């Protein structure tokens, strides 16, 4: 299958293809509507600044969605995400590029599945890691007769 990564192709230290996002304030409003999270720090600059923030910030859940896309894009249509975890340590702001990155940290078999653990994170334009996390995916194995 073209574009599909297999467990055998993966080595510890392999970097996932980075995913660059540049959410706009419009997207934050859209995400507020989709998620029901209408906390004003995500769309009201005055309010955000009164709480000590530099401006409106990106919803944590939207940041985890970007990390989810990073991993599922890489795992391909035959990969399955088992676990996705991240911590919102630093603020991320709209209208600037943020980059989702990942590196393979472990490759193993368990319960008949071919598994890969990754360290994942978001990087702001200054190169700081604002959102450290980790993920586990099941990948297809060339030995298991994938159709």
């Amino acid at each position, binding site marked *: 299958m073209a574009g599909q990564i297999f467990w055998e192709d993966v080595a510890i230290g392999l970097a996932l293809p980075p995913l660059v996002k540049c959410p706009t304030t419009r997207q934050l409003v859209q995400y507020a509507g*989709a*998620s*029901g999270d209408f*906390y004003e720090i995500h769309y009201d600059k005055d309010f955000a600044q009164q*709480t*000590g923030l530099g401006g409106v910030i990106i*919803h*944590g*859940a939207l940041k*985890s*969605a970007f990390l*989810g*896309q990073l*991993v*599922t894009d890489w795992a391909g*249509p*035959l990969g*399955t*995400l*088992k*676990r*996705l*975890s*991240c*911590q*919102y340590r630093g603020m991320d702001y709209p209208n600037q590029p943020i980059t989702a990155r990942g590196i393979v940290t472990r490759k193993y078999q368990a319960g008949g599945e071919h598994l890969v653990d990754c360290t994942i994170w978001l990087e702001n334009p200054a190169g700081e890691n604002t959102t450290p*996390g980790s993920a586990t995916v099941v990948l297809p194995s060339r030995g298991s007769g994938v159709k």
Partner: protein
Amino acid sequence: MPTRYGTLIAPPTFLRCMRAVQPELPFALPFERLLDGGSDWEYCQSVRAGDRITAVARVTDISERSGRIGLMIFIKTLITYRNQFDDIAATQTSTLIRY
């Protein structure tokens, strides 16, 4: 595009938008500000177009810490998402910070 699931499946954090009812704490907290601290998802079953999902949220831990922004209360909530077959589709542990 046809998938091995026979239909569309939801992106990983889609269930965050289910508007799970958050438990009310039986006491007031003297903090107005809040931050999302992070989330941990475990996936058991794919969520397919047409599934009926039930979300149940439970507070699992409350703790306090002091940091740069002063005293903070950490509230951990576990949300269990089940599908129409009563199978767990996913669980989500979220950490909310009140300060």
